[in-house]
């Protein structure tokens, strides 16, 4: 089963990390990712730009409505996601726990089974 691990944290908090702190977090997360990749279980990894860069398209009565900003006003924002290939939910939870330990502070990881997955052919 493919699981998406969705990362939530307060953008105010993540945004006040110094560059050094941010780099440290990314390095620790990178080490965890490497481990999952070596086990052949890691799909795409995505870190999103801040929600201030987001635009939302919403279905309006008279056609689509383009709104500045993220989909919902929440205390924690959707900051990025992983796709991992795991036998069980427990296994996906273990990965999320490792990511959590490598990250800084609170925040949350939502584990969502994936319905449709097309890896695409993007390279950067």
């Amino acid at each position: 089963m493919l699981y998406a691990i969705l990362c939530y944290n307060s953008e105010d908090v993540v945004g006040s990390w110094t560059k050094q702190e941010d780099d440290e977090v990314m390095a620790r997360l990178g080490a965890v990712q490497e481990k999952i990749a070596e086990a052949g279980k890691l799909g795409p990894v995505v870190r999103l730009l801040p929600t201030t860069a987001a635009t939302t398209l919403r279905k309006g009565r008279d056609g689509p409505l383009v709104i500045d900003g993220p989909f919902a006003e929440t205390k924690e924002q959707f900051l990025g996601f992983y796709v991992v290939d795991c036998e069980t939910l427990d296994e996906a939870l273990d990965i999320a726990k490792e990511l959590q330990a490598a990250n800084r502070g609170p925040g949350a990881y939502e584990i969502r089974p994936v319905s449709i997955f097309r890896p695409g052919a993007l390279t950067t």
Partner: protein
Amino acid sequence: MTADPSWIDDALTAARPQVVGALLRYFRDLDAAEEAFQEACLRALKNWPVNGPPRNPAAWLIFVGRNSGIDAVRRRAKQTPMPPEETVSDLDDVETPMVERLDGAHYRDDILRLMFICCHPDLPATQQVALALRIVSGLSVKQIARAFLVSEAAMEQRITRAKARIARADVPYEAPGAVERSERLAAVAAMIYLIFNEGYSAGVEEADRRAPLCDEAIRLARLLLRLFPTEPEIMGLTALLLLQHSRTAARFAADGSIILLEDQDRGLWNGAMIAEGLALIDKAMRHRQPGPYLIQAAIAALHARVGKPEDTDWAEIELLYAMLERQEPSPVVTLNRAVAVAKVRGPEAALAMVEPLEERLSGYFYFFGLKGYLLMQLGRSADARCAFDHAIALANTPAEAAHIRMHLDRLMKESGEAARA
């Protein structure tokens, strides 16, 4: 819970503008608000490691800070006459969820007010910046003094003076109307830009110490944009700061000399900052009628978008500067447009634009730098030398002076070669 206590510091830093802003609304006194915030932080440091993080750290801090502030008011009340009714009434028996709701509704204006009092027009620019860094960002006096290269005592005095001036001034506590809100927003945007420039205009020897000012300005701009997500000018401001800051690593050579935009190693530009800046500009442009920050950001974007300097769309840059000139006529903007004109139509056309500005820009380093450069391109070496001498006298940093001296040396060498030939 993680053993790493750094998350508490992170949470306190992130919550600070909202919490101090709310406490300021309750106590209507900056010192009281700061004191209450400090107290709330102390209690958080004791409480949070034991009980884990509260669901909403800012609401927790506001609630605790408010109660501790009221205690302090009561203690003082034993020695002094009772404080005005509105400072104490109706505050102490509120449940956290209610505080949360209350502050959810107010917090946008709370943060804006907190930032706005720092840019009171009575305060000189340096005091505005120092005060904002102290009050909104929560940097220590020592950190701010270090960034401004002054002693801690001098900075302490500067901030105390600024606070005293604000205490005497009228601070508007009622919720602002639409016009007032947009006026405050404009003042706060200008103050954030000022903080950025304090960091950005430093020479290389100060750059490391001052770079945190740029980061802090970007953090404040993003914060403001989260509060006002549909304001194209705040998108423009944030993008402008990001795009300028993205070039930081490429701006100085190892010996501290300035590397001009067109000579910079673009591989050193920060790709993530550029991506965020460009995304914000795309969003903002959908609103049409770009304002000054957005136009400047769009100009910076035209540099950021191309991999090689020779691909730069100077004609478009000139158009944007012309647009900026119409909105905010200033000789400095005209001077910048002249740089684009020089690229598009040659040094002669540019020089014709620049020369009428001399009277108004007689104390401006960049004016004489550009004038000298244009004259040099036109082969008028003696005039160019004269302009460069002026520029060196007006240089703000050793790096600026060194850059001009390099041109002068080249002129000397060329004229020497010409004489020998």
